[in-house]
């Protein structure tokens, strides 16, 4: 079932949100609260990117809402002069669902972390994604628990030595992009905290997507997991690891496109371009479910490769639009019959009257 099958108009994520009359600036979106992350925390870069990208959406600031859970990144709403709720651990997608369903005129963002979204709140995340509720989820993945001072998280690599795992962690991590795709997400992207341009591009596409958008943001926690993504940052290391995908473009990377992504078996592999027939280089198609999943599998816990950009973007009716349509249909039918009849409802079909006894 697609939007088109249902005869519904294809809408953008912000189509029902009122537009701003004045030109807005990044500083309009800064609240008066002092930002209190540790020096060097990757969250600062994301905050700066978000503050400067929000005005470009040209929607009213007061129609923007940030809902977060618990964790370092979940302090995010306090630092934006929009509406916001810093809620409880893991539940932000559920709270945002109620808000998005009842208020189509809002642009709803969820800020969450790897522990918040994938551990305690895993259930709400997957259900918000499968329902395709119109919201943009920023998943800050620092592969560690920061606020509770350094325990391993559901995205930490196996063997991680932390206070709670002195002999190394044992459990296999989630690949958040694979998880989101498996949960039927209609928009899944990934970006790096320090890559302002790449992050902004993915966030903008996510906000404008109608439906649930998940953006995994690799974020550095210099206090408890310092340099965890350094191999993707240092030019000499990242060269062979960072795979940036763009819809409609062949997937090559490295200096002068030294490497290419090609098909292997049911999945994908990386090969030196020199050894590949140019016709065999995979062209990215964000609407191809299988391709997106295969791309997600190229990213592994050792970060030998990591895919960035918009991995999947497909159109599917959103839960909130469909829910409102049902209510509107019922209300319209009742209005046509003279309005919803509370008197009739309360009386029902079988009443009897007692008088004058």
């Amino acid at each position, binding site marked *: 079932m697609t939007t088109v099958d249902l005869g519904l108009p294809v809408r953008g994520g912000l189509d029902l949100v009122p537009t701003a009359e004045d030109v807005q600036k990044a500083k309009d979106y800064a609240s008066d609260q002092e930002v209190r992350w540790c020096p060097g925390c990757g969250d600062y870069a994301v905050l700066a990117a978000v503050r400067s990208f929000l005005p470009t959406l040209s929607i009213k600031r007061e129609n923007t809402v940030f809902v977060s859970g618990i964790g370092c990144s979940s302090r995010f709403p306090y630092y934006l002069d929009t509406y916001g709720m810093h809620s*409880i651990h893991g539940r932000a997608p*559920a709270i945002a669902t109620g*808000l998005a369903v009842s208020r189509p005129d809002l642009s709803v963002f969820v800020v969450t972390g790897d522990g918040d979204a994938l551990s305690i709140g895993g259930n709400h995340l997957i259900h918000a994604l499968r329902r395709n509720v119109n919201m943009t989820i920023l998943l800050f993945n620092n592969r560690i628990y920061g606020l509770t001072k350094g325990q391993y998280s559901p995205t930490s690599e196996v063997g991680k030595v932390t206070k709670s795992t002195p002999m190394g962690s044992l459990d296999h991590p989630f690949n958040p992009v694979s998880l989101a795709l498996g949960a039927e997400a209609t928009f899944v992207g990934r970006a790096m905290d320090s890559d302002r341009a790449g992050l902004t591009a993915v966030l903008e596409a996510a906000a404008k997507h109608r439906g649930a958008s998940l953006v995994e943001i690799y974020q550095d926690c210099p206090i408890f997991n310092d340099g965890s993504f350094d191999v993707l940052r240092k030019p000499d290391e990242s060269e062979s690891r960072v795979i940036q995908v763009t819809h409609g473009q062949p997937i090559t990377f490295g200096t002068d496109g030294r490497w290419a992504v090609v098909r292997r078996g049911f999945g994908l592999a990386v090969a030196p371009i020199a050894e590949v027939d140019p016709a065999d280089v995979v062209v990215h198609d964000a609407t191809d479910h299988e391709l997106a999943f295969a791309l997600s599998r190229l990213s592994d816990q050792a970060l030998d490769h990591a895919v960035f950009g918009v991995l999947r973007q497909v159109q599917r009716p959103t839960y909130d639009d469909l829910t409102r349509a049902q209510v509107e249909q019922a209300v319209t039918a009742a209005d046509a019959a003279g309005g919803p009849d*509370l008197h009739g409802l309360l009386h029902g079909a079988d009443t009897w009257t*007692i008088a004058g006894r």
Partner: protein
Amino acid sequence: MDNPVDAALPPRPAGARTVEQRNRVVIRFAGDSGDGMQLTGDRFTSAAAAFGNDLATMPDFPAEIRAPHGTLAGVSSFQLHFADYDILTPGDRPDVLVAMNPAALKANLRDLPAGGALIVDTDEFTKRNLTKVGYAEDPLAEGALSSYTVHRVPMTSLTTAALESLGIGKKDAERSKNMFALGLLSWMYSRPTEGTERWLRDKFAKRPEIAEANVVAFRTGHAYGETTESFAVTYEVAPAALPDGTYRQITGNTALAYGIVTAGQQSGLPVFLGSYPITPASDILHELSRLKRFGVTTFQAEDEIAGIGAALGAAYGGAIGVTTTSGPGLALKSEAIGLAVMTELPLLIVDVQRGGPSTGLPTKTEQSDLLQAMFGRNGEAPVPVVAPRSPADAFDAAVDAVRIALAYRTPVLLLSDGAIANGSEPWRVPEDDELPDLGVEFATEPNGPDGSFLPYARDPETLARPWAVPGTPGLAHRIGGLEKADGTGNISYDSANHEFMVRVRQARIDGIAVPDLEVDDPTGDADVLVLGWGSTYGPIGAAARRLRTAGHRVAQAHVRHLNPLPANTEAVLRSYRQVIVPEMNLGQLAFLLQGRYCIPVTSITKVAGLPFGAEELADRLAAHLVAPPLQNPPLQDTDQKEEVPA
């Protein structure tokens, strides 16, 4: 009546039929889960309601959807009490027990008092069915049930014989035997039949042949009573003299759902229900899901936490957020209720209590979540608690709970229970102008210095904070679970501020306006007060009537607002020599009252998954009454065994 069975039965001699008047009758239909006993009971109830009797019902069914056929575990029953005066309970013991199979007989016979009428479907008393429930001998054998008036009726075969000419399948024919039973009881109690026939034709409108089969089965049962010698007496129960008004029959879950819809209409706000299916609360979700035309959105969430989370999100957006659950679900929602306490947003949390702890007894009733509702959260997290006292009262309780939530910007807990949820009674439908105005105003203007907005500035009367919904220009603000600074709502770890905020949150709940406790003391000189809450209202009232008839002086009061308690509660308690609190738990309200007022309270408790019976409670109360009964009890003109007219 043109009916194939008529010809087969010997006609009753003219004039042999006697009609007797009764003030009240208790009927229990019992059969296998698949026998349609709930439907049969429901229909008899509707007929009694339409006739103008007062009534109260108690369905009792297994937690399993289809327990093994013919077993004790699979017995489903429906008890109905109807009368010509205002009754308070579904009745302790049936006057008539209809047992559709040996399991139903075995499970229910002990409740039938000596002299009671027993109607059995003899066709089901096969060797195999008897063995299934451990009857070595046929319980219907001559002399075995001599203390009862036994009617042995081959209901299944009479029904299938009557339906033979219709050419419907054997299964469908047999399935109609519950309508035979209904027809027979309708004859015995002189009930009008047209309503039931109309209802059957409506219900099976899509399958006319099934409708016809059911109507014929119903008529066959009716004719069987009319023409069979063993039924020499019919009874009449006149309409009840209830207060003037328009009445309908309603169950607690439906009344509660209607209360929520009404609150939405009277406030002009959309209703958003976030809920996860759970027995016995799911019917509220079902009912509200059908009422979208009133601007009601229902969201079946992935779990209990998401249900309340979404409701709170909707409340933040300006809707009436509602979540419905039962005990185990309330436990899961605790943290989110705490967030609603901290963010001071209106929210309605409905807990339809059932037997606990843990999964407990999903289809049975209990009042054991009171302390969970009061205190089941981390930190000092006061929440108003409101409890309906009967199925019809669930409507008013729901409207009142939403009133408090909106006016004071607070989550409110509504404590219903299984007996209220599934029980039914006549409800005097409120006139349109009796419905309260619940209008609320959202904040639209800055309220602080220099055009700033202070989300935690308070109304001096109610201590409620402004409700500023997203989309309002100039009022953008952030709320959350961290402690708030007074006024600004910014994060604050300041110790003096925390002390202030904890106390102000408590003061806001303590200051909620609730009506005084009303005491019912007909003689005006009672020195014993029986105090209850929730669904014990009926049994306590019925027991108090019995005690008064026996010459005891007892006063009765019932608490609707458990938090905050009515302002006069302490004064009322102190004005009696003895206070007795019957509860379906191990003494939770008694514990609260003693802790709060340091007044000794006598606790009477029951945790059997079933309500108190009137007789049972009267006996237990009597055992606690210290003063001797009055010398000359007031005369009562009544045939009541258990529950007597006021």
